């Protein structure tokens, strides 16, 4: 029995990856939730917006890399990120102008908006594949680890190593900063307040002179920024491949819905709930248990509840269970 080693193994294989993945999902789910709260539909194109943002950032990263620019130990992609955000904002605003605004003026039903977002999803997916191709793209550089397993073992003399990738640390820190900035914006600024007012009660907001087109514009800009950041962080941490981003749509929706659609705090909580349940249910607990339990109780098998291929299945099983008991999510979302 060796509690310290058990704790290190748990941190290394469950807590650190869970925190990083949870932050990525939370940022994605915040975008979905904002669109739902203000434009009042589930945006199926969100995964592909993330892919587009990440793609623009990758193209700028490559440009900077070939020009010899770098961010030292940090990935060059951080320098390219603002350009990626600008590109995605442009795309989001053009899409809103050419596609969504028409249906807004028609006061179309939410389900029509969802169908329209399917069309946008197809087109964005096509554009990304057209420009960068369907394959895997690598754009990570800089220092690989904040602390590697070997250094950790040498430092502490423990049997288990703890490795924290730069990208994981970066993900969590960036997510904290972004979320803080977003909440400051929503709660303290005039525009943020008018966005919240519009989301709470459209008619009342219109009566008090809030310009809906401005609110919608700001929403798209924020969502585009969030999507790009989430997409780049995911790409740095794992890898960039257009199809993976399309598949991310599923856990992102699950996060937003579990937390309660339209509720930003719910989106963040949902992201971590989904991430940690995926990691804990598909992790083989043998190592942690072997350290943590007395020898006589040490497990024989891998103690894995489900095989890792069931990751998506886990997020949806949770989604459905939550919807059955709390139809608007854990944190009381909207029901339009």
């Amino acid at each position: 029995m060796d509690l310290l080693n058990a704790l290190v193994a748990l941190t290394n294989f469950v807590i650190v990856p869970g925190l990083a993945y949870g932050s990525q999902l939370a940022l994605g789910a915040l975008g979905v939730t904002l669109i739902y709260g203000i434009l009042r539909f589930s945006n199926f194109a969100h995964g592909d917006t993330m892919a587009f943002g990440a793609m623009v950032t990758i193209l700028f990263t490559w440009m900077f890399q070939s020009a010899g620019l770098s961010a030292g130990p940090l990935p060059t992609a951080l320098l390219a990120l603002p350009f990626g955000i600008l590109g995605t904002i442009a795309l989001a605003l053009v899409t809103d102008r050419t596609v969504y605004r028409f249906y807004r003026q028609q006061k179309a039903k939410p389900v029509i908006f969802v169908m329209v977002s399917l069309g946008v999803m197809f087109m964005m997916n096509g554009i990304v594949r057209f420009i960068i191709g369907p394959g895997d793209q690598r754009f990570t550089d800089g220092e690989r680890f904040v602390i590697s397993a070997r250094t950790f073992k040498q430092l502490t003399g423990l049997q288990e190593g703890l490795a924290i990738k730069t990208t994981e640390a970066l993900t969590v820190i960036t997510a904290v900063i972004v979320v803080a900035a977003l909440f400051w914006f929503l709660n303290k600024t005039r525009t943020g307040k008018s966005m919240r007012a519009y989301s709470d009660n459209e008619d009342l907001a219109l009566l008090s002179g809030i310009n809906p087109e401005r609110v919608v514009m700001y929403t798209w800009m924020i969502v585009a920024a969030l999507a790009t950041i989430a997409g780049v962080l995911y790409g740095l941490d794992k890898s960039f491949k257009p199809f993976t981003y399309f598949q991310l749509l599923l856990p992102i929706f699950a996060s937003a819905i579990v937390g309660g659609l339209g509720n930003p705090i719910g989106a963040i909580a949902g992201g971590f709930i989904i991430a940690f349940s995926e990691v804990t249910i598909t992790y083989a607990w043998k190592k942690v248990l072997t350290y943590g339990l007395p020898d006589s109780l040490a497990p024989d098998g891998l103690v894995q509840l489900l095989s890792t291929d069931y990751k998506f299945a886990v997020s949806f099983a949770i989604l459905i269970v939550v919807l059955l008991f709390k139809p608007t999510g854990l944190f009381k979302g909207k029901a339009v």
Partner: protein
Amino acid sequence: MTDTMKHTLLFVFVGVMILAEGMTDFLFFSGSWNSALVILNMGLISAIMAIGVNIQWGFAGLFNVGIMGFTALGGLAVVLVSTPVIPAAWSSGGVSIVMALVMGALTVVAAVMITKFMPAGKLRALVLAVVLIAGFFVYRAIFDPAVGSVEAINPALQGNIGGLGLPVLLAWPAGGLLAAGAAWLIGKTALGLRSDYLAIATLGIAEIIIAVLKNEDWLSRGVKNVVGLPRPLPYEVDLQNDPSFVERAASWGMDPVTASTVYVKAGYALMFTVVLLALLWMAQMALKSPWGRMMRAIRDNETAAEAMGKDVTRRHLQIFVLGSAICGIAGAMMTTLDSQMTPGTYNPLRFTFLIWVMVIVGGSGNNFGAVLGGMLIWFFWIKVEPMGILLMELVTSGMGEGSALKAHLMESASHMRLFTMGLILLLVLRFSPRGLIPEK
């Protein structure tokens, strides 16, 4: 020009396109009857799927984004019905697997009973947790070793429990039944949700079904695929070795290899057409009946229909099951056509969202629209790639031979497919939101 005329012309257009594919290699056509029949066959299957979705969305306004799951279940039915029985698998672990599954189902039933009949409180939560956790571990204790022993049997070719060894055509209705059963279970739990939530729940359930098919090797061989499924038509090789067929082919002026492939594909086309016409006829009859009128009344105003005494939840469940069953039949037909079950290839872009494009472009609420959409969009899905290459050749014709941009554009032309499908969908939603053949 009357509407009927216009709609007939649309069908004629699709027919002419497919004929042109067979007859000429002008522009993007390939001039091969084989390719024309391949397009026709998948077009017919797509049309059937589109009818299934149209019944749910067009008749009743149910937003089901889990079509892929039902299609895949249809495919699974082919494996379970038509592959030969593997006695060794059954004697070594098949029975235990079934027992484990029954055990798992009983656990869920018990959990549902507890939530229903015990008063809410800490005690109920505790009992529920104990039942679920104990159930899970007992299930795994029976299930895991049984799966291990089944999957150990001849893993290169089998490793699954096999099927019933029945004629493959029986798999088509069986696929419908399997999908209907799954739809009933899903509908019971998810149909209370409002439209977007229902969409996302069905999307997730379809992913779960695919995850199960990909990982439960004892059932579907997972990503190792089940190949060489029985076919309702003779093999091309056998036809080529049959002197009377070779003679007939010669009398048509074709070489035996082409003649045999065309013969088999035309045979499939005939069978699919029969199924399509039968389903189309039934869907039309249903739409025109009082039942169809009730469905549309519920779709247009749920509250009013409820006030008239219609049981909206029951009707929704009914139509969800019916529509999904049709998708299951189409899935079984598709797996039969391919002669293989490949769980890894099911992808929501192709098997869910593309079907939605078909229904919306064709005209939701109109069965003929769904059929037209299925055939037309499938034709474009296949042909956009050669069209894109043609377009790119035109665009890049002025560029130098070794130009990097030219190489990239030519290479990317094939990705025009998704872009074009999105564009078609958006244009139709904008300028003809009721589709090419609108609801009457």
